[in-house]
């Protein structure tokens, strides 16, 4: 705003005050650095100053910080009348892999994957039986391509159907030591990932008690028994 003679007229009036209260410039630089880093939007000098203690010179601190970052991996750039931290343009190629577009797996794929993980080695027919619908080629292809499943050995039954198993890449992705570490049904239920079956006959709703933060009544714990 006021170029290289910051707040010239302001300092006239408040010189004494600011002399004593303003933090050293190195400290102001730290503040600006932290704010620019954490902010989702570019910040103007005025916005920076508004958050800093009285007597600070945000514009000056930005300039100092900008010089400090010259030649580094990131730079302080001007965006309109605001400031932001951006990676150096010559390093843009490093960011390319950053832009992986993540999509959620389709429900069919995740269910198929879950069945393979829990039942491996498992045949196509068995997967279809559990899901109750035919297994599309696209689903299998996708999971094969992701390297999350692979063909296992053939089942020694008529037709010698091929089986599917999960891969090491699958275990790595899901942070599992082995497929045997997948929680069982009881544990899923205990963790609240599974609606508990309504108790036969009784119309009571045990779930309501269980969600209360206090001790659930004893009866509830039986549902959780491993």
């Amino acid at each position: 705003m006021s170029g290289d003679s910051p707040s010239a007229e302001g300092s006239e009036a408040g010189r004494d005050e600011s002399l004593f209260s303003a933090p050293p410039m190195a400290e102001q630089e730290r503040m600006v650095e932290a704010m620019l880093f954490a902010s989702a939007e570019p910040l103007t000098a005025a916005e920076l100053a508004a958050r800093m203690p009285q007597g600070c010179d945000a514009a000056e601190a930005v300039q100092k910080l900008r010089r400090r970052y010259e030649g580094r991996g990131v730079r302080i750039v001007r965006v309109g009348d605001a400031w932001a931290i951006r990676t150096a343009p010559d390093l843009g190629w490093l960011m390319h892999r950053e832009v992986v577009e993540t999509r959620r797996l389709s429900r069919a794929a995740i269910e198929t994957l879950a069945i393979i993980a829990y039942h491996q080695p498992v045949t196509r027919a068995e997967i279809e039986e559990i899901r109750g619908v035919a297994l599309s080629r696209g689903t299998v292809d996708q999971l094969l391509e992701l390297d999350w499943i692979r063909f296992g050995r053939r089942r020694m039954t008529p037709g010698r159907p091929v089986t599917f198993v999960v891969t090491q890449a699958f275990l790595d992705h899901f942070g599992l030591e082995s497929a045997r570490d997948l929680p069982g049904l009881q544990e899923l239920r205990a963790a609240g990932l599974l609606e508990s079956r309504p108790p036969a006959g009784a119309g009571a709703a045990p779930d309501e008690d269980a969600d209360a933060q206090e001790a659930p009544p004893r009866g509830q714990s039986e549902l959780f028994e491993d």
Partner: protein
Amino acid sequence: MAQGDESWEDGATETVAERRAAEALIVDVDGFEGPLDLLLTLSRTQKVDLRRVSVLQLAEQYLAFVERARSLRIELAADYLVMAAWLAFLKSRLLLPPDPEEDGPSGEELAAHLAFQLERLQAMRDAAARLMGRDRMGRDFFARGAPEAEGVSRRVSYSATLLDLMQAYARLRTRDEFRPYAFDRPDVYPMEQALERLRGLIGHGPDWTRLSAYLPEGWTDAPGRRRSATASTFAATLELARLGQVEIRQGETFAPIQIRRKPEA
């Protein structure tokens, strides 16, 4: 606290105060997360190192507490009563000389374990408080506010978490749990199937034909399968007769059953 407001009914002051105390007790019971929590609170009133807490005194306090609560006809959770029973047992163990005949841990050992449990719970509460008191991301320190993710190479990666996987599986399995009970027996020929089959065949046989001729292929050799197919096919002919599509006749008892398409009226 009790004075002032209660002036409208002089004699009732004490009763009201009493009732308030009693109600406070109820509130307290609700406020505790289980018997251990209650015991820990009680033991704090002893103002000693938890390792040197007087378990005997603690048991007394707990039992008195539970007794008072019960006298107010509070339905105490079973946990509290189980703990009360156990503490009464422990008390007797601590007061009586040890029985040399008896195996198992001594009263002192049980008491030491209880003291340990209380100390451990307290330690975890302290640890939790220290943990929550730490500098925390999003409050005391911050991650990059504007992560940069521009670039040319765009790769699609499919993501799924373990939670997704487990939930999917859970969804499938619960659906399974609710599947209506059904026979999955290979040797049962369902009537629906027989009906379907007869509908297709009946048009081609205007003359009287034995029922057995309509049995499906592969169902006539094994006696069990033949019986099932016969029963289903017969039931199907009854259904078709009811609909006015076929006629059924039988010469005498146990004679072959014959069917034909009902002649057009």
